[in-house]
């Protein structure tokens, strides 16, 4: 007999069974469905690896991200030996992704680029999340004429060509680093606001909200206990789909020369530099482009997986 256990109550088995059946909340259910989705799980693992590499790249590689070595200009990638002459000048060295035209190691630069691209993606998405959720929830919860007016503003903003405004902002503020995050975030909250408003409106009219009101729960309690949990699902899904959009927007600006500036780098900058010399050094384009494409893929797969997991009726 297992120590510490009293002899079984006649109904113990039944109780255990009942507990096993009961113990599954909506979120646990969603998590289970998400983890059964192979593409989503593989994407999460890959993304985690890329993020870890971005954090620990100075430990992994001996090269500094801005160190120039003029004896190693545009070296081809070499993975195993340092003796093979992979550089046009005859020098060699283990540069996993090769080097660029001023002799900087592209492996290190690719993952330093990952740092900035991922940071922009996450920070700008958080900005858009904060604005979008507050705006949408306020609009949906207040309702009536205020709602109509607030949504009209969103409609107006929707028809603006935003990339142009971001470009103007970047030019005026001289490519300020932080502003880049905020500017991209500030222009991508519109869809978020619409989603949150729609969800709030429909949640507000549900019976359980009415019941809570009848039971004397205050407005704050209703919002935090009942509205927010019902809005969270679609918001999470949209967040995972906003991050790749923001990463793309940042690389778009950097490609045009309006984003991140030297010696810092991002995937957009690396791709732009790589595209310039793809004839002689295709690795300078292929590695950063592949890294970015993989990341965007992963976010999209996770987003799709989350949508399927959180919204069972949509399958």
């Amino acid at each position: 007999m297992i120590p510490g256990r009293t002899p079984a109550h006649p109904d113990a088995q039944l109780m255990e069974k009942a507990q096993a059946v009961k113990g599954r909340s909506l979120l646990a259910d969603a998590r289970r469905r998400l983890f059964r989705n192979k593409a989503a799980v593989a994407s999460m693992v890959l993304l985690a690896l890329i993020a870890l590499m971005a954090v620990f790249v100075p430990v992994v590689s001996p090269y500094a991200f801005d160190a120039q070595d003029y004896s190693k200009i545009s070296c081809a990638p070499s993975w195993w030996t340092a003796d093979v002459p992979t550089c046009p000048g005859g020098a060699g060295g283990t540069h996993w992704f090769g080097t660029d035209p001023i002799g900087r190691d592209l492996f290190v630069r690719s993952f330093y680029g990952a740092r900035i691209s991922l940071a922009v993606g996450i920070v700008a998405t958080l900005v858009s999340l904060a604005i979008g959720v507050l705006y949408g929830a306020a609009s949906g919860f207040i309702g009536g004429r205020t709602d109509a007016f607030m949504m009209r503003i969103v409609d107006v903003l929707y028809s603006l060509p935003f990339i142009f405004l971001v470009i103007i902002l970047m030019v005026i503020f001289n490519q300020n680093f932080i502003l880049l995050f905020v500017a991209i975030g500030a222009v991508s909250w519109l869809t978020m606001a619409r989603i949150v408003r729609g969800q709030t409106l429909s949640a507000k009219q549900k019976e359980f909200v009415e019941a809570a009101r009848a039971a004397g729960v205050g407005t704050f309690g209703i919002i935090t206990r009942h509205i927010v949990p019902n809005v969270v699902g679609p918001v999470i899904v949209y967040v995972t789909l906003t991050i790749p959009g923001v990463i793309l927007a940042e690389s778009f600006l950097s490609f045009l020369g309006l984003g991140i500036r030297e010696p810092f780098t991002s995937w957009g900058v690396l791709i732009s530099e790589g595209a310039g010399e793809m004839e002689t050094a295709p690795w300078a384009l292929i590695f950063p482009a592949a890294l970015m494409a993989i990341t965007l893929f992963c976010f999209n797969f996770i987003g799709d997986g989350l949508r399927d997991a959180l919204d069972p009726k949509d399958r």
Partner: protein
Amino acid sequence: MLFYAIRRVLGAIPTLLVIITLSFFLMRLAPGGPFAGDRVLPPEIARNIAAAYDLDKPLWQQFLIYLERLAHGDFGPSYKIRDFTVTQLIMNGFPVSLKLGLLAITLAVAVGTTLGILAALRQNRPADYSVMTLAMIGITIPSFVTAPLLQLIFGIYGLHIFGLNLSLPVGGWNGGAAQNLVLPVIVLALGPIAVIARITRGSMVEVLRSNFIRTARAKGLPTWRIIVHHALHAGLLPLVSYLGPAIADIVSGSLIVEQIFGLPGIGRYFVQAALNRDYTLVMGVTIFYAALIITLNLLVDLLYGVLDPRVRLK
């Protein structure tokens, strides 16, 4: 319907005003005047230049002057490209951008819907999966990656299949010759193709399950006839509402594509102007494109009302 159209046109005016005001005052926030960078000018000359461009007047007066000129279709002179007005530059570049955009959107709709229908008909089979994987690739890989890759394959290496020379020029306008258009149009259309394919597949899958399609099948109509005459009309409606965003996508995509392929369109002007701090040109292009996008969105919405009798435009 007419009432709706009038209301929408009237509604577009404040939107445009917002854009004009925003871009005007943002530009004035910029440090330094438009001629600050050149060389130190004698004060009299500096004053004359300021007077010539109305820069000596109070800001609100400058704004009113700008608005008044704008009402006459005059975007003012370019600060950096001397002897040209912004209006002239836009009118020079617009035909190029328009041709590129129209071809791209036509290609995107044609290829995207075809792929989407194909995927819907073969739902959850290899053809469906491969189309959807392609669509995912099309959405995630940005045009500034596909453009150099296609240039590399078709231009620099030159593709030869069965002795056919499929090489294409990697850039230049060449008076709009067909071979110069192929690569830019394809690059510009790839993203929209992917989105359109996804939308079409989704709505076609739904439509193909509906009762009137089953009835058509029961009557013994051939599959192509069911698709062309019955399913397509309902299945393509969601696509119409994507056309608005698609236009905006193609416009912003043209910034990149015109730059990479060296095409003399508006997009390239805009990027150069932004980098050179040619403020009037940046403002002019922004306002011009905003007006264009608003107009096209309006047309798309009206088209939606015509195509779908269930939509009541009020």
